[in-house]
């Protein structure tokens, strides 16, 4: 890796660890709430991939933008969207970050420049390219990050977007979170070229691979890539090898992968690895970890109470914001 080591201060590493623990506990709570019927529709969990979002969260600034997929709870949390607003959205309440209308797959937050979950595979890539085009044309030096799974590589939009970004030299950071399974189909059964980043090289886009289970490695790679995109204004492609410990969604008997493989990857649990390394380096102690678990549990409990107390959007507002209201004026 070319760029320098991340500045591993105690305060920094505690922050990264808390983010990962928050994501893990948030997702586990969602699984429970889904079984209890509080969360409906589809739910795609990020357990096991926390390092990517946590690393990304440290690598981009408030001015940068993030376009994600339907598996975007971790990204939203890492990006700073309040836990309360995300949980309320999962419940479908008005206080949710999308006013309850999007649900798990469609978290949006203008303030944190989170341009949504997108439920159509690869649907976000062209958007990211377009936002980067706008930045370039308006002379703004900032980064648009586009997260997607390796399944997107089979969609035409993936290839069209990479080509446009390369052709027009646009400031887009493509982050492919390759968790080896696109829904029910293993990567090797759907991609003639399983090394996704090699697609980027065909479009002359510099690419790197990173161990998605090592948050330090992820942060280094993404911090470097983001700086390069910001400076050169040209696209960069990072492929992160990672793994999801739970099924694709709540309704998936996981027939397509065997238990042994899951156990194997669980040994590389990004949270246990990072916490273990920090303790051995003396940067962090058990008391710190317990404190983090406690404060995360409190924050999630509060978020649930907030969501429970939330309001249903009145039916009368059903058609509001289909179009921009006239008084809001034209941007």
């Amino acid at each position, binding site marked *: 890796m070319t760029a320098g080591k991340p500045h591993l201060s105690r305060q920094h590493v505690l922050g990264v660890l808390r983010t990962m623990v928050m994501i893990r506990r948030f997702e586990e709570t969602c699984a429970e709430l889904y079984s209890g019927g509080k969360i409906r529709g589809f739910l795609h969990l990020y357990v096991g991939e926390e390092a990517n979002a946590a690393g990304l969260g440290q690598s981009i600034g408030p001015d940068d933008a993030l376009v994600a997929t339907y598996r975007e709870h971790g990204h939203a949390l890492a990006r700073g969207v309040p836990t309360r607003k995300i949980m309320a959205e999962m419940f479908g309440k008005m206080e949710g970050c999308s006013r309850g209308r999007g649900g798990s797959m469609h978290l949006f937050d203008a303030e944190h420049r989170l341009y949504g979950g997108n*439920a159509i595979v690869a649907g976000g890539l062209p958007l990211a390219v377009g936002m980067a085009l706008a930045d370039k044309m308006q002379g703004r030096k900032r980064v648009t990050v586009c997260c997607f799974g390796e399944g997107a590589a089979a969609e035409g939009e993936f290839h069209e977007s990479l080509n446009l970004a390369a052709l027009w030299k646009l400031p887009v950071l493509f982050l492919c979170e390759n968790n080896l399974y696109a829904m029910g189909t293993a990567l090797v059964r759907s991609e003639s070229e399983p090394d996704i980043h090699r697609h980027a090289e065909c479009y002359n886009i510099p690419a790197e691979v990173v161990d998605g289970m090592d948050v330090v490695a992820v942060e280094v790679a993404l911090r470097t890539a983001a700086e390069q995109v910001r400076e050169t204004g040209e696209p960069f492609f990072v492929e992160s090898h990672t793994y999801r410990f739970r099924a694709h969604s709540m309704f998936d008997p996981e027939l397509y992968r065997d238990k042994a493989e899951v156990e194997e990857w669980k040994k590389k649990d990004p949270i246990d690895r990072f916490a273990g390394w920090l303790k051995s380096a003396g940067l962090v102690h058990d008391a710190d970890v317990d404190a983090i678990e406690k404060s995360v549990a409190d924050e999630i409990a509060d978020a649930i109470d907030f969501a429970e107390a939330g309001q249903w959007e009145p039916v009368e507002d059903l058609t509001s914001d289909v179009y921009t209201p006239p008084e809001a004026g034209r941007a």
Partner: protein
Amino acid sequence: MATITYRDAIRAAMREALTNDPRVFLMGEDVGKYGGSYACSKGFIEEFGPDRIRDTPLSESGFTGAGIGAALGGMRPIVEIMTVNFSLLALDQIVNNAATIRHMSGGQFSIPLVIRMATGAGRQLAAQHSHSLEVWYAHIPGIRVVAPATIADARGMLAAALADPDPVVMFEHATLYGAEGDLPDKPPPVDIDRAAVLREGTDVTLITYSGSVPKALEAAKTLAESGIEAEVIDLRTLRPLDDETIMASVSKTHRAMIVDEGWRTCSLAAEISARITEQVFYDLDAPVGRVCSAEVPIPYPRHLEMAATPQPETIVAAVRKLVGVDE
């Protein structure tokens, strides 16, 4: 006579087609190892092998186009696009190739292809996964569009569609897969040309299809309690529309109410309403009514999704107003 689910009926139909005709093969996302996102092809890959039960990458335009090519090449493909929401990526192949090649080639080629896709809202899957866009396909000359609502149609329509030399798009409403019904052990063949009168009536004709059929029947039951006898027509085929059955009924009841989960503007309901005023205008006692989805992206929360899409209560209220019982 056996009681089976709509899903089982679809599976039995595909199994029969795959067994009877070696040219038939199934292609789509997760149709193989996963057994189908709605479990309609469970056990197929073990029985027919991966060559004829093909899991595809997430490349809707690619594999739909490939299905069209295979049909041109003499196969009888069944392409499963998981839902109409994803079919938008394959629209170009369907409109500019499947629907057009025969005519554009001066009649040299026919494309015996069946495309199956789930459709409709009702599962709180929010806007991008809850579309009902059947009318986009019913607009295109060169393809046929069918919508099995009953267990008998779920079992029978595929065979008729596969026998058709031209492309047939088959819509299966997502909320119907779990529905149960009786089916004779040797189910009789089914046509894909006629609408069906599911309930006789004299005061109003309820014209509907697919996922709205159970809602219309329930509304008819409620209306009967207040003396309004509704005749319920299941369109079954969306292109071509069975004008004869529709007009015969409307000229009898003098009132028509169309229930269509699509958005109101430029909907199937709009087309049917236009045909009614063109063909049986002088038998109408009231303007043609329409119950459609509110013109919004379907929201996630249950109570908003319910408010946005046609429900038995809204159908009953609309009919009572049409008949002049309520203001």
